[in-house]
């Protein structure tokens, strides 16, 4: 996708579409507690938003996330998840036992927040991976 499908209409369309896409992704993430959706879907949407940018504007449009950027994003996402799990060890619970985290008054509330936290981690991870996958699968490679 070195060149992209860029035309003025697509370009403008993309510019106007992307904020809504990102907004929707955040909504999906946050609304996961109350309806269908969650971290994975949000991450995939965000990733696809970037991919859309690549398709429209060509691969030179890095949009701030290159190969190592994607990798860092993906690993950080997973690390957030793990860190939240390990944090509950510090407060005396078992691994991933968010109920003990001192972030809300009731254990159930703490659990809800914990779920949100790890969903955020999942979002980052999935977003990074989708970008990496698209970038590398479309990268032009020479015969070996």
């Amino acid at each position, binding site marked *: 996708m070195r060149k992209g499908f860029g035309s003025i209409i697509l370009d403008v369309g993309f510019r106007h579409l992307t904020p809504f896409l990102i907004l929707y992704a955040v909504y999906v993430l946050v609304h996961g507690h*109350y309806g269908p959706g969650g971290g994975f879907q949000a991450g995939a949407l965000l990733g696809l938003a970037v991919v859309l940018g690549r398709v429209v504007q060509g691969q030179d449009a890095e949009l701030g996330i290159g190969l190592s950027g994607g990798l860092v994003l993906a690993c950080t996402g997973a690390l957030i998840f793990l860190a939240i799990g390990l944090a509950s060890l510090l407060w005396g619970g078992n691994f991933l036992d968010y109920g003990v985290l001192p972030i809300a008054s009731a254990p159930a509330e703490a659990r809800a927040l914990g779920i949100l936290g790890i969903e955020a981690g999942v979002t980052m991870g999935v977003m990074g991976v989708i970008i990496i996958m698209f970038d590398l699968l479309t990268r032009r490679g020479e015969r070996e």
Partner: protein
Amino acid sequence: MFDGVVAYYLTGYTNWWLIAILLLIGFWGIVTQQNLLKKVMALNVMQVAVILFFLNAGQKAGTTLGVLRASEKVGDVSAYVNPLPHALMLTAIVVALAITGVALALLLRVYRSYGTLEEPEVFRRMQQQ
């Protein structure tokens, strides 16, 4: 539409049967297709069949999706679908995506190395080198 035993089996078991057939189509594709990309695709079909199997197991007739209505604090077991298979299958589906991604990456490099995706041809060219 149907009555009695026939209806019982058709409504209760057709899903299981078709899922089994879908699974076997995937398996057949992996065994007989020579194009590596199609093998990966057949693998996807198989994985979807397994996912369908679990989700079908979680169905309960006349229930609604697994989100509590805002008014309820304690769910009614007979009113909501079994959420466990859904959670499991979310994991399985993501695993399937991961596998597909890695498979496609390998596929791409196999193509760059051997110039073809037909398995017998790849083997032939491997022998030549």
